[in-house]
């Protein structure tokens, strides 16, 4: 079986795309090592444009146009420079309002670009430039261990991961910049306390769906491991998290785009991992794989695949689907559609 990537990865790449919203210049090259905060790409755009319609403003004939425009395209101009002049007894002038450049002279119109505004894109992680996107930016890559989440609020954090047994433990000191794992279902009223403690990020097993709008506004990076509902963190994820505690980690709480395979992720960089190949080997899942169940009534719980029938089965809902037989931790066997679980470990 293929087509599902395990949520828990041991030796994998974190691939972070860093791009500008508008095209500019890429400041790195392929294979270059970059540190968090390094400039990846920069676009320098004119801050303002001014289009001056010479024909219309001066009310001159087209035949007089050539003599009226005093600058050529691509010429630099300074504040006060004459750009166009209406000859005659009462002369009229169009002067450059600021320093800049004539970017176009077309159809009796002069276009000036003035000032500069810079848009930059910086790498949020340490890593190596793995791919360049012409004019836009690059993909930064680093090797390590990963735990994929289900939902994130679209932010980035880095810091030491710590375990918080319950929210009462949290004070206003000692948590600044720390990434916190809290094995509780987060409610919106707890957010204020965590914000005051200035934590660097938060990981929870699940979120209350009725308070969704508040979670998307949280000022720190927030990741839910299983999504929305009621569940505790299952043992295999707890064990993997234990490897991350007290270490410097990256928390990328990307807003999930399942159709583009974009998910939030907790990542522990491991510099001494060695792989003989450029790409980590794909692990196929199947019989014996540990899975996390989606949907009620087993939301977030785990089990092992013990049977994979070839034929579709008709479910209680009347829908037909291919299924897996999963043995849950309590020994019960349930039949689950292939789409209704995530693979934890292949």
């Amino acid at each position, binding site marked *: 079986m293929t*087509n599902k990537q395990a949520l828990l990865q041991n030796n994998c790449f974190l691939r972070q795309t860093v791009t500008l919203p508008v095209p500019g210049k890429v400041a790195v090259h392929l294979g270059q090592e970059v540190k968090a905060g390094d400039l990846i790409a920069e676009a320098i755009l004119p801050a303002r444009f001014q289009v001056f319609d010479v024909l219309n403003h001066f009310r001159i004939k087209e035949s007089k146009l050539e003599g009226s425009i005093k600058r050529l395209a691509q010429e630099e101009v300074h504040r006060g420079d004459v750009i166009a002049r209406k000859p005659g007894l009462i002369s009229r002038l169009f002067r450059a309002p600021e320093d800049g450049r004539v970017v176009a002279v077309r159809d009796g119109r002069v276009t000036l670009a003035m000032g500069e505004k810079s848009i930059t894109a910086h790498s949020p992680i340490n890593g190596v430039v793995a791919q360049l996107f012409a004019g836009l930016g690059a993909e930064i890559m680093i090797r390590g261990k990963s735990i994929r989440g289900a939902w994130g609020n679209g932010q980035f954090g880095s810091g030491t991961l710590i375990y918080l047994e319950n929210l009462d433990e949290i004070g206003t000191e000692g948590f600044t910049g720390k990434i916190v794992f809290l094995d509780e279902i987060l409610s919106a009223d707890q957010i204020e306390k965590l914000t005051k403690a200035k934590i660097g990020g938060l990981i929870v097993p699940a979120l209350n*769906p009725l308070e969704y709008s508040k979670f998307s506004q949280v000022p720190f990076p927030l990741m839910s491991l299983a999504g929305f509902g009621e569940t505790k963190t299952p043992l295999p994820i707890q064990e993997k998290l234990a490897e991350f505690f007290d270490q410097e980690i990256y928390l990328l709480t990307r807003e*999930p785009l399942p159709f583009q395979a974009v998910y939030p992720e907790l990542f522990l960089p491991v510099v001494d991992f060695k792989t003989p190949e450029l790409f980590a080997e794909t692990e196929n899942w199947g019989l014996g794989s540990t899975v996390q169940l*989606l949907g009620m*009534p087993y939301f977030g719980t785990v089990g092992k695949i013990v049977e994979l029938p070839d034929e579709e089965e008709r479910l209680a809902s009347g829908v037909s689907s291919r299924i897996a037989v999963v043995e849950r931790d309590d020994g019960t066997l349930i039949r689950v559609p292939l*789409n209704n679980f995530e693979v934890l470990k292949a």
Partner: protein
Amino acid sequence: MVSTYLGIELAAQRTRAWLFDNESGVFQLKAQVDEPDYGDKREMIHQVLRELEKSSGQRLHTKHGKLFDINKDKNSSGLKGVGISYSMGKPIRATIIGVSEKFSLAPLRRLLQFFNVEIVLELDLQKEPNVSNQLETLISTAYDLVVLAGGVDAGPEKALRAVINNLRLVAQLRGKTNRPQIVYAGNKELADYAKLEIEIEDDLHLAGNIQPESGREDLSFAFNAVLKAIQRVRIKEFPEFEDFSGDPDIRFLPSEFGRGRIDHWLEQTQINGKGLLHIHLEPDHGHILAVRDGLRMGLWQANDLDQIPIEALKSLINLPVSDFNLTSYIRNKQLHPGFVPVTIEDLNIEFALTSYRIRKLLEGLSGLYDQFLYSPEQGLVDNYEPILLSGSSLTKFLPLRHSFMAALDQILPRGITTIVLDEFQLMGTLGILAEFDNMLPTQLVDSDAFTSLATVINVVSPNAFRRIVLRVEVDEGDKGYRQHHQIHQSELKRLETMNNHEIRVYLAPERDTDVGMGMPGLGGWVNTTSSSLGIIIDARGRPLRLPTDEKDRQELWHDWLWEMGV
């Protein structure tokens, strides 16, 4: 000589493939594959081809394992052409620029929203005559496609010339690799000027004027140019498919275009004087197409579950569900779009979601086109037959009867119509493969590749609740045996029919009762074929009179579903 054609659809998280040949004398569906995928699409094409090769025995890879083993010899058997349709990819960000709201921007919305396109910027040159401001807006917004229209042929040019100058600057500033595709569909006199001025070679697409004369709009003049622009954007997004775009034996086109082409052809060939309606629902998007008197109307809608009001969904659920469970399902469905409903509660929520999405598509289309008459209360005001349903949200996430009911209750069709399910999602690929051999779609449409769900007879009557509105006689041609039924006001009745029979139904409506035979009170014989659900007589009226009490409403829904055999 046997001609074989291969269709492939690259959808979000799925890859589908179909193999057709005319070995039996007419084209038939020989094999099909529908596989979920989460990774490399090119590899997925190899995978579905391997599966097709296994089930059909036909070689589709070349001897060297490459795509595709096309036989160029017209006089010998083999694979003759490949049609690749795609619905994958983010919506293309588009800017529309027009001289006026009514005559340029509104038509451009209709033109672009047919496709997987998100309009991120609209520039109305009348409302924003300041050329400097126009330029700043055009430079500071991110988009991949610009469509410019406006002005009748030989009409005023000044505003258009200025914006063309600005587009030249935009293209220069962005550079060759990042400049947008630009489609010019305005005043024809300026087309050459635009070409010379903007100077971006194949990234500029000249179309006919979508408003050649005052008051006359024809979007078809710009359809091909937009299609080419979309294709170039997609090739940039998925460079691994670049080799497909120049190959004469391969067509690489958006799925919605394929569906539009086949639906248009179907409407043109039928003689019932009705329009054709097609609703296609996938987990990531929906697409509605209506063709009426040759006018093709379409709308693509991304499935944004964030925007669905919970109260609207609750009104469509026929079972008590807590707000917590309802919102959990919706939020998690957003994270796992392939989630299959297992419990009855899941099924009811999925049914409500599907119903809501169908309604939004219908409302959206009626908002775009004055010619598409629909309201959620009155349903379709015009006659459409057949009504086609397709897409995995209707075929994989709901049982057939639920899909039917979700569609029926939102569309609320008029008169007599047939509802057909495209279970194998063939419509898009047939529209694209039609370019190679138009006998292929013609013969496939006449085959059993499509599932006739039901013939629906809609009864509109002013009669009081539970009064008889219609008497029905069903003749299944079976040794003179005939069924007789009485239909009451507000009733939904299903008449099961036997398989493989031509069925005749005699409708005898009460006075003032309209069954779509031309005028109230007029009845007559209706010929129909057997279908999965049979004949559905919908005498529930327009609008559907639903109890205000939630429990009563849910019970009524339950009764209707029960009548459908759910």
